[in-house]
């Protein structure tokens, strides 16, 4: 079954590449095999696949996307994809009923030595705004594991490939732009860190004329 899951993962990456011709632009750092938290803008379920596909295979193998268990544990197929194929770190987004602190779950994954892919907006952006406000999770993770470096990744165009509610994807060229890694400064406040990390991501968005 392990082979099947790994085959499914390669198929997923191959499909994403064939459809979007995804091109990684390493603007602020190189694709090094160091422990990182990649954080990106979120507009499509395929976002993590695109970041994943942009990473060289050895790094990809040790990078796990963080996903909401409320969505990914529904139904056998989603559950299989989330737990076996992409090996996601699942967190409970519903604040009131959850049994585990999501930051503790992430910190545990970090202590196991893997890199993470997170989407600090918390949910898919279906508005006209370029980027939604960040949730505080990214700060709390940085506080729990201050040695971690956070790499902003701007995903361009994927929201046009498969808008919310559509089934058939449109082939369009996508890029992922990797920015300069940042770390939580010693005396940095929550608001300052969140703003700094959000601006670092926004700075990677290409300015195209409409």
């Amino acid at each position, binding site marked *: 079954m392990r082979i099947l899951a790994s085959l499914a993962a390669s198929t997923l990456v191959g499909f994403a590449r064939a459809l979007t*011709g995804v*091109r990684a632009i390493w603007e602020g750092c190189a694709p090094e095999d160091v422990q990182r938290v990649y954080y990106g803008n979120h507009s499509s379920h395929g976002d993590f696949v695109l970041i994943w596909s942009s990473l060289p295979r050895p790094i990809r193998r040790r990078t796990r996307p963080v996903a909401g268990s409320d969505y990914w544990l529904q139904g056998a197929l989603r559950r299989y994809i989330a737990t076996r194929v992409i090996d996601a770190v699942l967190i409970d987004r519903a604040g009131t009923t959850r049994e585990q602190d999501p930051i503790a779950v992430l910190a545990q994954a970090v202590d196991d030595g893997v890199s993470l892919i997170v989407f600090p907006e918390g949910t898919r952006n279906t508005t006209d705004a370029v980027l939604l406000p960040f949730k505080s999770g990214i700060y709390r993770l940085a506080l729990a594991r201050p040695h971690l470096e956070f790499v902003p990744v701007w995903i361009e*165009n994927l929201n*046009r490939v498969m*808008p919310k509610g*559509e089934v*058939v994807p*449109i*082939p*369009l*060229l996508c890029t992922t732009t990797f920015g300069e890694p940042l770390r939580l400064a010693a005396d940095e406040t929550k608001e300052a860190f969140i703003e700094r990390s959000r601006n670092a991501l926004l700075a990677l968005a290409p300015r*195209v*004329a*409409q």
Partner: protein
Amino acid sequence: MTRHQETVVLFAAIGGVLVFASVVGWLLKRFVAKGAPHGSIDNLNARIRAWWVMVVVVGIALAFGKAGVIVLFGFVSFFALREFITIAYTRRGDHLALAMSFFFFLPLQYYLVWDGWYGMYSILIPVYAFLALPIAASLSQDSTRFLERTAKVQWGLMITVYCISHVPALLTLRIPKYEGREALLIVFLVLVVQGSDVLQYVWGKLFGRHKIAPQLSPSKTVEGFVGGLLSATVLGAALYWITPFAVWQAALMALLIAVLGFFGGLVLSAIKRDRGIKDWGAMIEGHGGMLDRMDSVTFAAPIFFHVTRFFFSL
């Protein structure tokens, strides 16, 4: 010569030109750039490497006959349409029209070319897609910049699918005493149009002084245009033996192809400039995207097809 011998001679000649280009590129890198990074020379070498790949890919497609050629240009259209739609302004309401363009009209157009149904493949996109796509877009009830969006999708489909599909459509022409050799018309068109691009580039680099359209394409010069056109005409005349044309006819055809190719490059440059991009994509190293390589073919192919059909085919 048999058709097989002709093909071997042609590809040996193309291989010879590429070997020559590669040696020149290597010498430039070794003695002019002294092995250090050098913008123009490295770009030249990247282009030559890409030419090797393109010649091999086209050669393999031709070896597979009609099916190979149809599949190859089907993919060329797919990549070109993807590049075009990527930079066009579309909205969520265009989703159905775009899905139909990629997954219905593109394959259907190439199927009809395969089938040789001239009456249908020459009107599928200008008539049926032209009416069906705005209907599909209107169903979403999003009227924001509706005409502009509809026009862009239609224009993209015309350039990248309709025009490019006229290259493999050359195989469907029935020319007396030319049966079984139609694939060589494709070789003629591609060699002249790409040769003209390269020759204009070379003449422009060597003698270019007066810019033709500095606001659209700063690299195009009068000297490059005239030199490229004349040498492409000579190239076409020299290739008359693979065509159904006499020498003077082959020369005129080559001139026509080169002129249209030039303007194809100019028009697609105007679109790039308006969108603030330098290249259509990055899939062919040193050249940019598929449309950067095919821009001249898109304009030359349909006209070459129709002129040949009108004067030479049954």
